[in-house]
């Protein structure tokens, strides 16, 4: 092929239809197999490990069972809260998925239209009906702190390999952070710390496609801290 673009380490920018491998067994996320060969389905970064995955550079969040997400209540029906999860599909939070037993009339007392919640996708059916739940200790309404929204495609970089980036960030900026797979991120801490956390998250979003990101973020945090003290 004529234009191979950046070819650093094991990552490469690919466009839909690019041939990735002759070995069908290597097909991972964002790829498809035709005539025993692996091709890219997406415009994104191809990762060559034991399997080839293509990570998209943009696109909408598609809910999957088990994802932690941050949602905003947009409507209340007889027994469901309808929750915007920044996706083409709305989430449904059933009254029985609230940690406490409540009556239908009281629903708006606990979660009003506009309330932000840390929630989890309980199930997604083939017609893309998305069921949410609040039955977990770390889930619940957001009362303090702030929420930022980044592209959901950058979330894996924000978390890092095995959570390396996010645990480093939490420790360094002294904030509590909840990362929603849909790209919404909740940050809670002292005002100054929150500002720095926010700046860092946005920096990670901007540079998510580059190599050696964690090291550069550590460097950035060091510099910012010197500037502030």
């Amino acid at each position, binding site marked *: 092929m*004529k*234009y*191979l*673009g*950046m070819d650093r380490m094991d990552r490469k*920018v690919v*466009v*839909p*239809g690019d041939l990735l491998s002759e070995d069908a067994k290597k097909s991972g996320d*964002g790829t*498809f197999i*035709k005539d025993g060969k692996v*091709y890219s*389905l*997406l*415009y*994104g*970064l191809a990762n060559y490990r034991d399997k080839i995955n293509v990570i*998209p*550079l*943009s*696109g*909408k969040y*598609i809910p999957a069972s088990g994802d932690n997400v941050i949602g905003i209540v947009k409507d209340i029906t007889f027994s469901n809260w309808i929750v915007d999860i920044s996706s*083409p*599909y709305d989430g449904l939070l059933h009254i029985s998925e609230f940690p406490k037993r409540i009556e239908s009339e009281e629903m708006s007392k606990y979660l009003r239209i506009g309330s932000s919640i840390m929630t989890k996708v309980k199930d997604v059916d*083939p*017609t*893309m009906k998305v069921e949410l739940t609040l039955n977990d200790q770390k889930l619940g309404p957001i009362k303090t702190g702030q929420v930022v929204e980044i592209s959901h*495609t950058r979330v894996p970089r924000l978390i890092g390999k095995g959570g390396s980036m996010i645990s480093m960030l939490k420790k360094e900026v002294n904030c509590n952070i909840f990362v929603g797979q849909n790209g919404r991120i909740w940050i809670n801490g002292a005002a100054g710390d929150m500002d720095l956390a926010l700046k860092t998250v946005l*920096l990670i979003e*901007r*540079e998510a*496609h*580059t190599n050696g990101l964690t090291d550069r973020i550590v460097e950035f945090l060091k510099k910012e801290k010197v500037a502030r003290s």
Partner: protein
Amino acid sequence: MIAMDETDISFFKDGLRLDGRREDQLRPIKMEVGVLARADGSCYIEMGGNKVIAAVYGPREVHPRHLQDVTRAIVRYRYNMASFSVEERKRPGPDRRSYELSKVSREALEPVILTNYFPRSVIDVFVEVLQADAGTRTAGINAAAVALADAGIPMKSMISSCAAGKVADTIVLDPMKEEDNFGQADLPIAMTPNGDITLMQMDGRLSIDEFHKAVEMAMKGAQDIYQMQRKALVDKYSQLEGEPHREEVQACD
């Protein structure tokens, strides 16, 4: 065809065309990816005198609701010409021609889009022609394919589009306005890089041999355009700079 003695216009001078191109040469092409902040994907393209912008939104919720399909995403494609895009003011709004172009362009792109990934949703493609100079449908399809990729929509491959025509009994690639208006035939195609044709139209008359030659020439042109589309996309993320930047691709052959 306009009642005009075709021998009146000479399409060739010293073996070159009116704008100095060879028979099998494309007009200069420039592409820019991600030009619109609010769209999920976008592309601006210049193909000779054509200036076209494409925007992709979605997958998103379908409005009006009755259009939605529970098994797959629907694709909507709107081709529109600005009233100032042609010499004589075009009456704004959809007309017979733009309905037809919207339909054929949608059908040119739909086969490569994995619509079954996004049930009950819509992928909206808007193509606005800002300046027209023959071959706006091909420019629109090229821009739309890049914008779809930029929007992160899963596709089996890219789509590239190019036209061939016949003027003064000669088959030429990518006819410009004069050749289109006073030529004998126009044959736009769209295809995947491995040669599967998803759009083919013809206006005018061609013999079977001429037809084969024109298709072959247009496919070669589309192949070159594919390389430019690819380069425009790859270049967007090839540099390390933090601030968002744009890459321009210039190609003349």
